């Protein structure tokens, strides 16, 4: 296996974990389709997270397979068309709590290393 391939996989893996959490958090507001989720994440981060919408879908399907979200084709209220709407399940809600706390722990750990002085003050 080439080293490039390995590198690519690591990057995806890192993103995936975060992306999952972001999706779950987004769905906390209520059901949404893929496009809305993407738009929401991009909008709230002020376009900081430059992600391609495409990467959302494998993540959504993975979450669905794990039972954290459920999916259903529904007609959008503003457009007279059907979209695939995802909504958070109960286990998904629990998972969000877990991921959130993990993320927090990690962020704190990273912060402690990066800004040790701030801690001492």
């Amino acid at each position, binding site marked *: 296996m080439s080293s490039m391939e390995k590198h690519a996989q690591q990057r995806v893996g890192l993103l995936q974990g975060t992306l999952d959490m972001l999706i779950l958090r987004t769905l906390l507001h209520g059901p949404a389709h*893929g496009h809305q989720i993407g738009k929401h994440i991009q909008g709230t981060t002020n376009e900081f997270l430059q992600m391609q919408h*495409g990467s959302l879908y494998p993540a959504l399907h993975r979450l669905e397979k794990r039972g954290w979200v459920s999916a259903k084709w529904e007609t959008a209220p503003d457009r007279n068309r059907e979209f695939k709407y995802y909504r958070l399940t109960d286990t998904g809600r629990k998972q969000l709590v877990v991921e959130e706390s993990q993320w927090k722990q990690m962020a704190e750990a990273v912060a402690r290393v990066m800004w040790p002085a701030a801690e001492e003050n």
Partner: protein
Amino acid sequence: MRWWQFRRRDADLERELRSDLELEEEEQRENGLSADEARYAARRAFGNKALIKEQAHEAWGYAALDHLVMDVRYALRQLRRSPGFSAVAVLMLALGIGANCTVFSFVDALFLKPLAVAHSERLVRIYAKGPAGHYGAGFSYPEFKLLRDRASSYAALSIEAERPQLHLVLGDDSMEVRGEFVSGNYFTLLGVEPHLGRSFLPEEDMVPGRNGVVVISDLLWKTRFNRDPAVLGRVIPINSIPFKVIGVAPPDFYGDLAGLPVEVWIPSMMYGAAGYGCDDGTFNCSLFESMVGVLAPGYSGSRAQAEAASIMVWSATDWPERPSRRQIALCAASRESPDSQADDAAQFRLLASATAVLLLIACANLGGLLLARGLARRKEIAVRLSIGAGGSRIVRQLLTESLMLAFLGGIFGLMLSMVGKKFLSDFYATDSEGFHHLYDLGLDWRVLLYSMALSLIAGVVFGLVPALRALRHDLITDLKDGGPLEPHTKGWLRSVLITGQIALSMILVIASGLLIRSASEVRKGTNFDPKNLLVLRLRPELLKYTQPQMEALAHRVDERLRGTPGVQSVAFMQGGEGLIWNWQNGRDAEVSAIPGSRLETAGLQVLKQNVSSVFFETLKIPILGGREFNEQDRAGSPRVAIVNEALAQRMWPAGSAVGHNLYVNGQSYQVIGVCANLQPESSVYSPELHLYLSYWQSNATREGDVRLAIRVFGNPLTSLRMVRRAIQSVDPNVPVGEDMPLSEQVSLEYMPILLAPSVMSFCGLLALCLTAMGLYSVLAFAVRMRSREIGIRMALGARRQDILGLVVAEGAKLAVTGTAAGAVAALISTRLLAGLLYGVRTSDPATYIGVTVLLLLVALTASGLPASHAASIDPMQALRNE
């Protein structure tokens, strides 16, 4: 999620992506972009659609399937791209796998298929093992009763006696049918329900000779009664006793032994009445071959055997061949008796080894072809590696290709095995006594699994090495369109493969050579002449003829036949179940040179046959000393005997045997002649001791069947009808059977020895073809790879014949190494054939030399084409191509 949901999911994903993409496009348009710009922007925002799909598949856990589908598609494309190669590969594998499957179908039918009865796993068969180690020593009825009434290890027990030659008369038609005498509970014990009528009632097997009832087989019902339901209640004479048909067995039930289809089942109490009792009309002597039983819950086979052995009290018998020194032997009720299982196992081991070697050769050959192809495809592989395919992906890809080939080969092989099975079962359909055999050769999951497993193994064996090899090339050189290849360093593996193939083919061809010689030796007859000779069997004992009636019949038949035009001479013989000529047949007797001695230490065990006058003349058996029987050797005149050479040498090693006296069961006989051994020379079987007594001085009623040998002018087959008619004109009632030319009987009797060479030759011939092809392709490939070198040689002044010699020498080197290795391997491995070889040694020099020459010639021919191709290389062209 199942695979068929996969498509639906994919469609769903597709729809989702489309709807979201359209939305994005609309939004972009609402932002003021033109339609085209909006579409492109949307696509950009989305990213690579194929990648999304692939990642989604991975999310579903379908990546492996995805890769497999891709690999299979790619492999199919590759195979389609070189149809010639694919066809040859599939054909080779099909032949190899087909041959193996054919043999396995028989192994399955004989050894593996469970009996088609209820609780076959708890079913056991009990045999009495004789002192010589064979399982057919048999039980007497009181012995069976003892076990049935006292043993607690069996939930049910039935006695069994199989008689293959019951005489059944239907209208004007008489035939021999295979019958089994069984206890009243036989069918309930096996859980077999007749599909018409009923099976036996318990009271129908209580009193000797009282209930003449019979259950017939479905086959008999179909072929002889036109499936007429009115057969129930019909009375049919079997061995001249009326039997009432009470039931028809289900179509898939042929009795509990493979290959020996039972046609009528009769209660054991009718055994004596049907003519198989002891002299006193009872059946207390040991006559039943086996018992079949169901183990009681909680009992193991070994425990049941121990119990049976402790209970059994062997009754004394007055039949010398049914000795009282017997042992209980309990086996799981398989499809064959242990005796025939041992014979058949040896036979099928041989056939299976031959076909396995054939498959091995096919694999080696394909391996060589794939190695060569791997070199030819190295640019393609280099491209795939350099654009990021992992090494394991490449190996998996190449393996998929070989597995595809292997499975295609397996499927065609299974089809070919249908033809093979027909061939083999035709061989086994009739035995030397004219009885029919039937095997359940239907395709079952075992055969399917076996063929698939073979394909898998074959695919990995011939595919893995080339696949691993494919990775071991230098990317850069390969990408630069086939840099120079040094065949001497990279071709060794192919050389080893081809040498191995030559060696293996050598073994097969030598084995078939030896077997062919043995078969022709057996066919032509050893010290007897089977040409222009008819044999047949009369069975007056079934008509309960008395001694004078039997002798009168023999006389009149003899007289009538001798007066029939076209008949040269007539002889007859009596003696157990023996064939008229066979060195293994005859009734056991004890012979001594000391008067009155019945001690086993003093006596010799011999095979005894009673023969008429001119017996030796009719069969053209050489008389080595003295004279043969004549009309004067009859009851009342001095008792006389003829011994074979082996017995003469054993009893009177010094001097002539003629004139000496010998004693059989205390009775004195004078030796009047010594005849040649009828046994073909063998390294395994020592010569049998044979004793011939005069037919007119023996007890004809005791001996049963009379066998006739009739020497005719011209083709014996055309005289057969006439001879039968002549006998019927003497006595229309006497059952006639086993009627065939002696040469046919010899073939049937030696069937394993005749079958082995045809299977072996088939494998040997294929192996030769494959090897020639393999050698050709290796050399042709080498020539292609070395064309530049050859060009340089020619440019430097090498002549055409030098180049020709170069390539042929290469081939010769491989062939000589291969044949040498093969000869050594054959010397060792053909020892396994020793039991099948008559009149030829396993190290027969003529065969070895002949086969070596043949193989070298084949190798030379196979090298000729590439050599002439090499010699016609244009040096300018070859060099310019670089």
